[in-house]
């Protein structure tokens, strides 16, 4: 059983939902990323999604685009991100880490080589935004051989056939993109989320996470009533951005928002 599956099983046994924060590796400076990951865990994160900076983040809104740009000023590469995961693993062997990013940096490194390095570093899952199941067969085989879970997205536009296909190939959990739009969009419609989650659950036993558009403790709590996991990205990254010139204050700020989400989610019965 992968670390991700084990973590979801533990949470389920305790009647809790997973809180998954997203930050971009290297934002605003590479030196603090590993500390921030530990901060997130100490404040109540169950899994961590770590963004791999990319020059052309087509599916991301302005907040996460700018995070990539800040990290790229320090030339933070996929290799550097794997190094950060290794460092994180020295103190935390339990919290699953999922890399989120785009395909091209992986293409350049080579699929096999990347899978080797990622497994060695302690990466548990991968979410590659621009590779649908149809294009990813080779990658799926390689990651499977290394026991890395490949998480796929379901979108509001996904048809029942596509949802089935995605559920069949997804590992760890299925990630439902709750709004039509890019990361950081603001029009979360809980009714339609509920409807789509029922559709997904009828096709898989995998846990279902929901992300895009979750900005505060209240929305996190509301979504956690419906989903197995709540993913929070832009709400955290905009705090990182606001404190980009005072990086020593970022950890406390992220801990604060994650704690408030954790508390709100745990109050939900």
């Amino acid at each position, binding site marked *: 059983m992968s670390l991700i599956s084990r973590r979801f099983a533990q949470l389920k046994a305790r009647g809790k939902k997973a809180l998954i924060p997203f930050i971009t590796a290297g934002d605003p400076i590479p030196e603090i990323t590993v500390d921030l990951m530990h901060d997130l865990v100490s404040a109540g994160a169950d899994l961590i999604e770590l963004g791999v900076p990319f020059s052309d983040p087509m*599916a991301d809104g302005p907040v996460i685009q700018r995070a990539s740009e800040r990290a*790229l000023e320090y030339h933070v590469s996929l290799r550097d991100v794997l190094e950060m995961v290794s460092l994180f693993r020295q103190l935390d062997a339990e919290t699953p880490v999922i890399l989120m990013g785009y395909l091209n*940096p992986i*293409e*350049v490194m080579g699929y096999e080589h990347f899978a080797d390095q990622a497994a060695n570093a302690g990466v548990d899952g991968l979410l590659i935004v*621009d590779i*649908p199941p149809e294009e990813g067969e080779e990658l799926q085989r390689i990651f499977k051989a290394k026991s890395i879970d490949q998480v796929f*997205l379901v979108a509001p536009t996904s048809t029942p056939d*596509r949802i089935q296909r995605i559920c069949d190939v997804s590992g760890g959990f299925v990630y439902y993109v709750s709004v*039509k739009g890019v990361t950081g969009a603001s029009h979360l419609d809980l009714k339609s989320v509920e409807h789509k989650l029922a559709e997904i659950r009828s096709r898989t036993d995998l846990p279902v996470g929901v992300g895009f558009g979750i900005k505060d403790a209240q929305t996190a709590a509301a979504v956690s009533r419906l989903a197995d996991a709540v993913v929070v990205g832009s709400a955290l990254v905009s705090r990182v951005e606001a404190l980009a010139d005072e990086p020593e204050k970022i950890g406390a700020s992220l801990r604060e928002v994650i704690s408030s989400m954790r508390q709100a989610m745990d109050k939900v019965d």
Partner: protein
Amino acid sequence: MAITENIIGALPDERGHFGPYGGLFVPEALMEPLEELRVAYKHYMGDENFLRELDEDLANYVGRPSPIYHARRWSEQLGGAQIYLKREDLNHTGAHKVNNTVGQALLARHMGKRRIIAETGAGQHGVASATVAARLGLECVVYMGAVDIVRQEANVYRMRLLGAEVRAVESGSKTLKDALNEAMRDWVTNVDNTFYIIGTVAGPHPYPAMVRDFQSIIGREARTQMPHQAGHQPDALVACVGGGSNAIGLFYPYLDDQGVAIYGVEAAGNGLETGQHAAPLCAGKPGVLHGNRTYLMEDADGQIIETHSISAGLDYPGVGPEHAWLKDSGRANYVAVTDDQALAAFHDLTRIEGIIPALESSHALAYASQLATTMRPDQIILVNLSGRGDKDMHTVAAREGIRL
């Protein structure tokens, strides 16, 4: 790899692959809209009413067929092969771009989409999109890099006159590639009522095939015109390649004519050796960007790097996947010419033939003038004169220290 079988009609496969290139590398949210587009496109390309409307628009609105012109004086002075020009510069809006926007806008209307979006670099595709949107009464939003907006002020004003909203893109390098990212983001958000008109043969399937099919009118006309006008088909075709839509439009109908040599000309900018260029086929390597696998300009970490060309229309770090395949297969040759060489050809054609070419097309002209001198006077080179140079007056003048 030797090609023994016919190419036309064989590629791409159902999911848009040209060998290892092309494909569908997009976020899940776009998979269904792209499928809807693929199905609609396939349907309407077999629909007589649609095709009749398209033909009428191309004839009466665009002004097709575009003529072929024998550049006699220039050919004589070069002392080699005869250079013929396919005059896409004479189309409505001044470039080949409109062949594609007329087709896609018609498709948008038939699909019931009331809003169109487009990305633009030099502004030609943006103008061509705004033009057809005005004519069909569709809402139009054009994404343009903030840097390009400054470089191409006149085209921005043209688009606004035509009723389009031009949105400045401030992310990344603030040029064409970033405009494309932003248009994709808009599309993900507004898929229900929005049709995305991509201006070149790149992007996810079915765009590379669809844009090629709309632009192939260039080569189909040329194949009919050349025997009448010159007595035989050309020995060589030359076209500039940014994303590669004018080039594929000329090349595609000739791919099975093995006697016709094919040359795509990329922008070498300040020179390939300087790294300041926009020549992914000549000096890049395969990767994935903007929905397809193709040759890219990228660094060792897989980040897309900034390109340089005097011509905004060639200033793009990727290239259509069919060109990537044609390169690897050996059916087409890809070469590059520098800013200075393109400028020299710009002046030559202007002074010797009285035709002011676009800076993009000037790259093709520059290579054709080199190629001509290696060929006999009874041989023919057909150059795609993809656009006119009016839009480039400021760039050329500034380069020579003149303020207009």
